């Protein structure tokens, strides 16, 4: 009995923090999403106008599709790059000293803020930027490439740049826990390097891949600033929809979009968790 009380008390601080700063705001958002709004005011109500408008507008579907597209492409690229980097760190670099050193190098870009890292792409990719002028001077192209900046390309480039490390870290962690003798056992059983990768390393990295996937998809789906900057406000995702509403003080409408986005992300994560039981694998 007293043991139970102690346990409750121990859990209480974290529970209160989560309640106050996570659950309460979400409940608030859900409540506001049913409120009504005019051009100049918002008023408490319980009506489905916001949702009706949201699901009735073709823009919503385009924007949600765009968001999922960004998430999917970014996920595929970060997974490819992240897995390769993690593999190199975990299996090709033999000494722990070098592993730590190289790992820290991977984190260096994170010493500057997101926005600065993003904006620094602009002079590089711009019409008369480094990339275009270099390609022209090499004679690869005659006219500057227009799609380098303010396009899906630049948005995804920035996403991959920003979030690859979130894939590297959990996969690297999974790989470091693979017993070296398993790789030898695979070799002993006649597995080629490729077979070892497919039959031993990838299955054992699944939890890491899954955690990285959750990081990247939630970050990309919730993002709005990257899309705004890197597309020069020419592309939209759900985050931008919400931020536009907020800047117009249309809180009920923004809340409704946020609720739909939250549900979408939860469904995606739910599907992912069905594929791999992370709790079992941790």
């Amino acid at each position, binding site marked *: 009995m007293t043991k139970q009380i102690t346990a409750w008390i121990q859990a209480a601080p974290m529970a209160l923090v989560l309640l106050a700063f996570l659950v309460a705001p979400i409940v608030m958002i859900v409540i506001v999403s049913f409120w009504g709004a005019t051009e100049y005011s918002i008023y408490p109500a319980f009506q489905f106008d916001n949702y009706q408008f949201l699901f009735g507008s073709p823009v919503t579907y385009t924007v949600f599709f765009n968001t999922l597209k960004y998430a999917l492409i970014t996920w595929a690229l970060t997974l490819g790059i992240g897995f390769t980097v993690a593999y190199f760190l975990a299996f090709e670099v033999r000494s722990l000293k070098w592993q730590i050193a190289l790992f820290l190098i991977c984190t260096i870009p994170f010493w500057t803020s997101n926005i600065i890292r993003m904006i620094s792409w602009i002079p590089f990719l711009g019409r008369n930027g480094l990339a275009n002028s270099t390609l022209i001077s090499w004679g690869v192209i005659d006219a500057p490439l227009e799609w380098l900046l303010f396009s899906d390309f630049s948005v995804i480039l920035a996403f991959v740049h920003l979030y690859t490390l979130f894939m590297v870290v959990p996969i690297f962690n999974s790989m470091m826990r693979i*017993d070296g003798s398993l790789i*030898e*056992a*695979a070799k*002993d*059983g*006649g*597995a080629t390097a490729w077979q070892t990768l497919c*039959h*031993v390393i990838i299955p054992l990295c699944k939890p890491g891949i899954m955690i990285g996937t959750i990081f990247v998809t939630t970050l990309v789906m919730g993002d709005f600033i990257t899309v705004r900057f890197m597309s020069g406000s020419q592309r939209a995702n759900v985050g931008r929809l919400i931020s536009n509403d907020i800047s117009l003080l249309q809180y009920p409408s923004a809340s409704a979009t946020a609720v739909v986005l939250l549900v979408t992300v939860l469904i995606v994560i739910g599907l992912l968790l069905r594929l791999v039981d992370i709790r079992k694998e941790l």
Partner: protein
Amino acid sequence: MTRNSDLELIALTKRYGETVAVDSIAHRFKAGVYACMLGPSGCGKSSTLRMIAGHETVSDGSIVLGRRDVSHLPPAKRGTAMMFQNYALFPHLTVQDNVAFSLRMAGIDKPERHKRADEMLELVELTALAQRKPDQLSGGQKQRVALARALITRPQVLLLDEPLSALDPFLRIRMRAELKRLQRELGISFIHVTHGQDEALALADEIIVMNNAKIEQAGPVREVFNTPKTAFVARFMGGHNVLNLPQGHIALRSDEMIVTAPSAGRIDGRVVGVEYQGTHVALTAEVAGGQEVTALMPDADYLKTPKDPGEVIGLHWDDRVAHPVSA
């Protein structure tokens, strides 16, 4: 003439930078032998085994298996299979898939490889657990899976790296009986690395004692135990006293020591310890020069003339039991 599937090591050397882990060793393992490589940790026995398996590159010399130089072949092409110390079972695969792993890598189709895996599991009496995952098995069961997985490739030589060290003492004795049974049934060579001399004595036809990157002595198990060539082998195999006498070092089996009245034996000693071991009593005495000598006597004999620590006794032995050894 090397007979088919004899394994021969020729001037085999392993260097890690400046340190020499295995120093130009030579030995021939006859086909179908149960050989134990024995030695203290860091003596080079594991490096030797890993070189034979192909998990460690050969710095110098060669490994010949059945007239074929396998020194630079990949592990699976050598005709050897390795059983790892911690079993190295794939945690994401069932017992059956673990055993069938090498067949799967070789591209053998599912029904065939499951059939052969089931045969192997029958050999190690694990048929009932075929669908379990490794983390649902006990230590002894994991070991059998590892054994089945190694044997499914039909190797000519099975290499075992301290296979019993992760088991509790009771299970260790049962598993070693099983290893011996399997080796006899299959008729292939087993090369077993261990640091336990009782394990080596119980299992081996042939013992290779290694120390400081070299083979100290190799030969049939009784020969190595009864006529150790060096003081190190005598001490490491246990059951021996090594005495430094004016005429040189000699090794004496402690159960051949005869306890007599003072001055009636070859040397006198003062009892420093009496240890009851069930069937025997181990009497430790300090003789001239501070050397300790242990006499192992049947407990009935001891009870006729019990000794107390501090008492002076004589120690005698027959000439036939004294083996000169090099220091």
